[in-house]
């Protein structure tokens, strides 16, 4: 899209050691055929993907731990319970889940989106308590937007590297 992308594309096309870009449709079935079309870094993408699949769980756990630590200081017991649930679900349907949902859930629980998620959770708690008392005076749309914005932006490049 950007100007430098085209420059790097040209350089890649000119250099003899770069990967071929056009692939036979059948070769897509192999996991390494799913490497991004740009071929910006010849050997790196395939490696990244395999790393991601293997080290995925590690990353998740790390992210979980970090956010859990952050949360512990602020809100003790409730949050941890809420966070453990999606993790279990992910393990059950690791294969079937939409990659977008998976990456965005990871991003929501990552350190990057911790402030937005904190605000959103707090807002949900506040508004649900208001609703139980009688009409809610506000909604969490704005907080939801901030969280969704953060999560999608963080997940976009990862998602595009897995989709065909």
């Amino acid at each position, binding site marked *: 899209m950007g100007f430098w*992308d085209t420059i790097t594309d040209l350089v890649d096309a000119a250099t003899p050691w770069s990967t071929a870009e056009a692939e036979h449709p059948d070769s897509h079935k192999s996991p390494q055929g799913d490497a991004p079309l740009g071929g910006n870094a010849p050997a790196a993408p395939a490696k990244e993907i395999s790393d991601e699949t293997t080290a995925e769980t590690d990353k998740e756990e790390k992210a979980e731990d970090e956010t859990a630590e952050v949360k512990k200081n602020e809100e003790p017991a409730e949050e941890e319970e809420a966070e453990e649930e999606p993790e279990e679900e992910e393990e059950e349907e690791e294969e079937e889940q939409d990659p977008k949902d998976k990456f965005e859930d990871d991003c929501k629980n990552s350190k990057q989106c911790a402030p937005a998620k904190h605000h959103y959770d707090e807002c949900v708690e506040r508004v649900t308590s208001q609703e139980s008392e009688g009409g809610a005076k506000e*909604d969490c*749309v704005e907080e939801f937007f901030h969280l*969704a914005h953060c999560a999608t932006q963080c997940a976009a490049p990862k998602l*595009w590297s897995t989709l065909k």
Partner: protein
Amino acid sequence: MFARSGLRSTQRVFAGARNGAINVTKRAASTSSGAEASPVRLNIAAAASTAVAIGSIAWYYHLYGPTAHAMTPAEEGLHATKYPWVHQQWFKTFDHQALRRGFQVYREVCAACHSLQRVPYRAFVGTILTVDEAKAMAEENEYDTEPNDQGEIEKRPGKLSDYLPAPYKNDEAARFANNGALPPDLSLMVKARHGGCDYIFSLLTGYPDEPPAGAQVGAGLNFNPYFPGTGIAMARVLYDDLVDYEDGTRASTSQMAKDVTEFLNWAAEPEMDDRKRTGLKVLVVTSILFAATVWVKRYKWAYLKSRKIAYAPPKDANVQHRQ
């Protein structure tokens, strides 16, 4: 009566103010400090105007302050995230495998409600389908013929020159079938919405499992953060494995959304591949021509730029200088 007395009193006040003003100018002109009452009046006026200003601000806040009625984030809608679309790069074409998958998604999912009226079957030939496939697909539909000898309009199977049929006869029928909401024609939708591809992809995949707490969702509407106003009549349609791709790609929700978005971008801009190639040719040729013109200019101007003009004064002083 009261009004008149009130008027009179205001006149008096104005007169007083005028006197005060005159006094002030007088005092400024001469150094004598004559008028004792004027600073009090000025103080009163200042206090009154301040009170009026504060009061009007308070009144306005009382009317409109506590809740924002316009340009809330929900009204604006969440701006679509930028995705690194490959086909939007300068030297990249559409991924025609993706177009083929996207067309399959359109045909099996979107076409139930959305028309694609500006795209003829001939446009698919060579880009998405082969000639035979496109012909077979066109023949599945019936179109009106020209009037025959008796003036009757008969039906004939479709040809390559025919345009894709619409799911409804007209807009009214479409509204009636969809609870009053009109599914828009998708031919130019990528060009017609802010954010283009990003918006459509985000809209298709952005339905949350449940709306955020406290959000108001109207009757018959669904919550989608990317739709301005967040209430959209279209429900979520793309679910995992809804379509069986013929090339064996796994039909996850985001994969289908990506393919159909790229397909809709092709529908709106079928000339993109050619446009980019032509643009590249234009850039190459014009840069060569520009370099040539620069060289010619320098060549032609060389003797002018390299000449040296010197003034040599006459050696013998024949000239009489005027004293």
